[in-house]
C-alpha cells in the first residue's frame, strides 16, 4: 500500500552545507497539477468516447488472430489470448477500472478519515476502541474478506470495491489518525472549544481543513494500488466479471500467459495503470502544495 510523505517545511538544512538550492515555485506546482489533470482527463475522455474510439468490439474474440504482437496490421497493440484487440480493451477497460479505483479510493479515504477524526477526538477509551477495530481489520487477511464477499454477493465489481475498501481503510485511518493527533494538540482546537464549538463542528469545520491536504495526498496515492489490487482479485476469479474489459483483469489474464512467452497482454495494461497511478500521485503532491497556503519558507 502506498503511504505518502507529510509536507516538509523548508528550513536550515546543514546537510546541504553552503550549497544553495533553487526552491520549488508555485508555478511548477501548478504545472504539475495541470499535467496530471490533463493525463487523467485524457483517460476519462477516452473512456467516455470508447464506443467511438475503439477500433474493435473489445469482447470480440477472433481465435484466428491470437497473441498478435504490438504493431500487428489491424491491431495496433496486438491481441490477447482470445484474439481480442488489446487497444480496444484498454480503451474500454478504462471505464470500469477508473470507476472502480476512484469509487474505492474515495470511499475508503472518506471512511478511514472519519474513523481517524472521531478516534482522534473522542478520548482515550473511544480512540482505543476504534484503533483496536482498525487492528482487527489489519489482522484479518484481506483475501479471506474478498473470497467471502464473493460468496455472499457473487463475484463482480461490488466485491472488488468492497474488499479494496476493507483493505485500505485501516491504512488510511492509521495515517490520518497520526495527523489528527498532531492537530489535537494545537491551540486553535482549544480556542474553538472556548468559542463553544461542538464535537462535530471541531472535527469537520476546524480540524478537517487542516488534515485535508494529507488525506488528499494519501487518497490519490491509493488509486494506482487499487487497480493493481483489483487485478490480484481477478486472478482469483472474484474480480470484475468477464467479458467486461478491465485493466486489472487484463493484467491478471495476461499474467496467465507470461511464462508461455506472451508478455504484451499483461505488460500493456500494466503500463497504462502505471501512468494513471503516477498521474494521481503527482496530482496528490501538487494538490497538497496548492491546498496548503503556508508552504513558504520557515526560519529566517
Amino acid at each position, binding site marked *: 500500500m502506498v503511504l505518502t510523505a507529510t509536507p516538509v517545511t*523548508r528550513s536550515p538544512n546543514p546537510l546541504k*552545507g*553552503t550549497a*544553495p538550492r533553487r526552491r520549488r515555485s508555485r508555478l511548477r506546482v501548478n504545472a504539475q497539477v495541470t499535467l496530471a489533470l490533463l493525463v487523467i482527463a485524457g483517460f476519462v475522455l477516452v473512456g467516455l468516447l470508447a464506443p467511438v474510439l475503439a477500433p474493435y468490439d473489445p469482447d470480440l474474440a477472433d481465435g484466428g488472430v491470437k497473441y498478435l504482437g504490438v504493431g500487428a496490421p489491424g491491431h495496433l497493440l496486438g491481441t490477447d489470448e482470445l484474439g481480442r484487440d488489446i487497444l480496444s480493451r484498454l480503451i474500454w477497460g478504462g471505464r470500469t477500472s477508473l470507476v472502480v479505483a476512484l469509487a474505492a479510493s474515495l470511499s475508503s479515504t472518506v471512511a478511514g478519515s472519519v474513523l481517524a477524526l472521531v478516534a482522534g477526538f473522542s478520548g482515550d477509551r473511544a480512540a482505543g476502541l476504534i484503533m483496536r477495530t482498525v487492528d482487527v481489520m489489519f489482522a484479518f487477511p484481506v483475501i479471506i474478506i474478498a473470497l467471502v464477499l464473493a460468496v455472499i454477493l457473487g463475484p463482480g465489481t461490488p466485491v472488488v470495491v468492497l474488499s479494496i475498501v476493507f483493505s485500505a481503510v485501516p491504512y488510511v485511518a492509521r495515517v490520518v489518525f497520526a495527523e489528527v493527533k498532531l492537530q489535537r494538540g494545537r491551540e486553535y482546537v482549544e*480556542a474553538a472549544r472556548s468559542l463553544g464549538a461542538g464535537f462535530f463542528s471541531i472535527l469537520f469545520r*476546524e480540524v478537517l481543513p487542516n488534515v485535508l491536504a494529507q488525506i488528499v495526498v494519501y487518497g490519490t496515492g491509493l488509486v494506482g494500488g487499487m487497480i493493481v489490487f483489483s487485478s490480484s482479485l481477478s486472478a482469483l476469479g472474484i474480480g470484475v466479471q468477464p467479458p467486461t474489459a478491465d485493466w486489472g483483469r487484463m493484467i491478471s489474464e495476461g499474467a496467465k500467459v507470461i511464462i508461455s512467452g506472451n508478455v504484451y497482454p499483461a505488460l500493456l495494461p500494466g503500463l497504462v495503470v502505471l501512468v494513471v497511478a503516477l498521474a494521481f500521485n503527482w496530482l496528490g503532491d501538487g494538490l497538497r502544495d496548492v491546498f496548503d497556503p503556508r508552504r513558504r519558507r520557515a526560519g*529566517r
Partner: protein
Amino acid sequence: MTGALLSVRELSVEFGRGPAAERVVDEVTFDVRPGETFAIVGESGAGKSLTASAILGLLPDDAVVTSGSISLHGEEVLTATRSSVTRFRGSKIGMVFQNPLASLDPSFRIGNQLKEIIGLHRPAATKRERHEIAETWLRNVGIDDAARVLSAYPHELSGGMRQRVMIALASLSGPALLIADEPTTALDAVVQKQILDLLRSVSEETGGSLLLITHDFGVVSYAADRVAVMKDGRIVEQDRRDRVLTAPADAYTRSLIRAVPEIGARFRLAERGLPRRLGPAGGDRSPASADGGDGTAVTAAGPRDDDRDARPPLVTLRNVSKEFVVGGLGTGQRKRRFRAVGDVSLHIERGEVFGLIGESGSGKSTLSRLIGGLLRADAGEIVFDGRDIARLPKAELRRLRPRFQFVFQDATSSLNPRVPVGEQISRPLLRFGKAASRAAGRARAAEALDLVGLPSSYLHRYPHELSGGQRQRIGIARALALEPDLLILDEPTSALDVSTQANILNLLLDLREELDLTYLFIGHNLAVVEFLCDRVGVLEQGVLLETFRAGELSAAGRHPVTRALLDAVLPMRFTDESGTRGHAAAGKADP
C-alpha cells in the same frame, strides 16, 4: 578593520533567485572585537538570525549570500569550501541556539554528546580525559551534579539546564567567537539572567568574544558592550550600548526602547498626568481609535476603587484544585497523577485587570483554563456571575461561554490556519445566535476588526497572511465579537516583538475602558503584568502565594518568589548590581 575578530562587510542574503528573490539581509556591516560582547538587536524578520547563520554557513538551503564578505581573523569565510567552514565550526566559532529544548539530540545522553564534540576537537584525548573535560565544563557552566547530568537524557533536564549544557557544548573548544542566537527567549525570566551571566563569564574565561542576537533591550542593556540595531535587513544604528540606550540616534531605535515596559512606568506616567500607554501609542493601530485613549484615559487610568466595591465580584474561586492523570489504560505509560492547581481561592472584581504571574509550570495556564471552563475543577467552586461553572452541565456551560472568552498565548496556533479570519470570527456568532445570518455575522466581524484597529478587508485573509501582531489582534477581535464580560488573556504578548507587545497592551487598555471589560491576565514578565494589572496574584507549583495591588509590588514583606521575579526583570537603565556589572564589562571592552 584591524583588531577585529570577526568583520562582516556589506553582507547581503537573499531568498530565492532572479526576480522572485527577496533580500532579507541588506549590506550589513559590523565588527566584533576580541573579548567584547556585541549584540544585534531587532524584531522578528529583521534578518539578525540569518546574519548569524551566514557566519557559520548554516543558511537555509534556499537562502543565498549574494554579496559581501565575512572574515574571521582576517581569513575569509564565505569563499571557504565546505570543509574549511566545518573547520571553523566549533573550533573557532561556537553557536548557542534559541531553543535549548530541541538543540540537543534527544536520543543520546548528555555525556555522549559532549564527548563526541570533545573527541572532534581533541582527537588525541583518551576516553577518561574526555570524560573529565566534559565534567569540568559542566561545572564551568554551573552544573554541580555533573555526574548525574552526564548520564541524563536531554528531556530529563530543565530548559535552563539544557541551555547551560548547550553553552558548555558550544564553548568547550574555546572558540574565539561564541554566537548566541536568542539564548534566553525560551527561558523563564529568572533563569534568563543566570544564563546571560554565564554566557558572559564563559566568554571572558575563554577570552573569546560573544555575538548576542536578541530582540530584548533588557538583554542588551544587561549584557552587551556594543549594539547594532537591525530593521528589515539593515543596520539602522550601531554604537556602544550606553549611547544607544540613553541617546538613541535613530527614530526606530527610540520607538523600540520606549516600547519596553518597565517596573513602575505606569506610575511615572500617572504622575506626569500622561495616559498609561507604552511607546508611540498607535503603531500599526488605526488613528481613529488610537486617540480614543487620551483624555478619557487619564482619568480612567489606574485602579478604579470606587465602582469595584459597588458590584459583587465577577469571578470567585474557592479552594479550587485540579489534578492531572498521566498514562494509565492503554496509553502505554504508567499511571501518574500530579497536582496542577492546589486549593486556590481568589476573586476578580468587575472591571479590574487581575494578573497572574509565575514561572512556566506554575499552573497559571491551568488555572486560567479552569476559570474559562475549558477544564473542570476536581474540587472547590468557581463562581462566575453567581453560577458555579465547575458544576454546570455541559450544555449550560456552553451557553455561558460567550461571557468569558480567551485570548491565547500563541496567536499563530490559536487561529485555524486553514480558515479565513472573517469566518473564524463569525462562526461563533452564528453558533450563539448573536448573528442571524452569515451576512450579519460578517458585519459583526467587521465591527470587531474595527475595534482592534484592523480594516474589514482583512476578513478574507488567512492567518499566515498576517503579522504576529495582527494575528493577536484577530484573536482579540474573535473573543470580543461575542461581547464577553471576562477576557482571559493567557500571555497574549509573550510571543510578540516589543513594539507589537506595546501596541497590544495599549489596545487592551483602550478596549477595557471602551467596553468596560474585566481581564484575567496571565504573564511571566513581571514588568508587563505590573504595567497592565490592577491586582497581581503570584502562583508557584499550583499554589497561590499572595495577591497584591500593582502599586504594592516593591513593598516590603513580598514573598521571596515574587522578589525573585522582580529581580529577574532586566531594567533598561542601570540600577544597582546589574548596572555596575554592565559597566565593568563595558569598561573592560573599551581600549
